[in-house]
């Protein structure tokens, strides 16, 4: 599969490394030049493109038109939702997964905003911790 990961911080670079180890073709779109080094270390097999994921041209440069899945995992919820909207409704990507940073924003991560699967770190962690405590 061709997977486009938008956001190459801690989460994005770890995810890109994991996916390329599993044999997927991975491209990472990251806005900050400074994060590129970390990406090359964590995900040496991923193709890294520098650009803003809310800019349709940057998404095209990163190959959004040929991606099977887009994962929007930046630290900004609004940015992630602009990415999923563009990916699903403008570029026709089959599936979009998004990271939720602020639990109060979970309500927006719906098919209306192009999100097929929303992953809420705080929620996932809280449930795991609650399970461990019980």
């Amino acid at each position, binding site marked *: 599969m061709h997977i486009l990961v938008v956001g190459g911080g801690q989460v994005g670079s770890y995810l890109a490394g994991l996916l390329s180890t599993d044999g997927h073709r991975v491209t990472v779109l990251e806005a900050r030049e400074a994060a590129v080094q970390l990406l090359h270390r964590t995900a040496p097999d991923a193709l890294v493109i520098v650009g803003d994921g809310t800019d*349709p041209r940057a998404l095209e440069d990163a190959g959004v038109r040929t991606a099977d899945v887009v994962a929007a995992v930046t630290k900004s919820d*609004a*940015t992630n939702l602009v990415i999923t*909207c*563009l990916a699903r409704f403008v570029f026709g990507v089959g599936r979009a997964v998004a990271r939720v940073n*602020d639990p109060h*924003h979970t309500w*927006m991560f719906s098919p*209306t*905003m192009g999100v097929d699967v929303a992953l809420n770190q705080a929620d996932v962690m809280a449930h795991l911790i609650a399970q461990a405590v019980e």
Partner: protein
Amino acid sequence: MRALILGCGRIGGGLAQRLAVAGHAVTIVDSDPAALAGLPAGFSGRTVVGDVLDRRVLVAAAIEQSDGLAAVTVRDDINLVAARLARLVFHVPRVIARVYSPRAAEIYRRLGIQTVTTTTWGINRIAELLSYAELEPVASLGSDVDVVNADVPALLVGRPVSALTRPGEIHVAAISRGGKTFLPHLGTILEADDLLHLVVLASAADHLAALLRA
């Protein structure tokens, strides 16, 4: 109209005050209480402190009853997301998002988001003012007709007066050429360095500016 404004920066605050003065029921939301405190003392609208992407905040700001919404925070991504949610989730009839980046306005429109790019507007307006300052208002005849002077634009040199005439809207009343002023007819050929004295319907001023720009 019940208007909801998201973001209380210079545009949001100014827009809120303008709509409130015009008699509209205005609610303005910002996460920073200090920004809302900067509204004019007599501001008659309602203010709500909170995250513009928090559903409870939007509902408290009566988004469901709003007739129009302007998403004018400092961040393009927040404005785009808020605008799409306002249209599709809360069914607000009129929604505008301000974006700084002019590159993707067309694509955002395909997502159902009408955008205004203040940067582009500012650039165009300033360029217009810098380029067309030569249009010099001389007198107003009543409130609907103006007399303006303009140097003949280079591209109209050699063309007849009719090229600049719009019956009922724009007439070349007189031309000053070589120290003399005369009344032209439609066939009079414009020459370099002519000073044109035009009579213009006020509503056709933009039209004239466009003709002189050509």
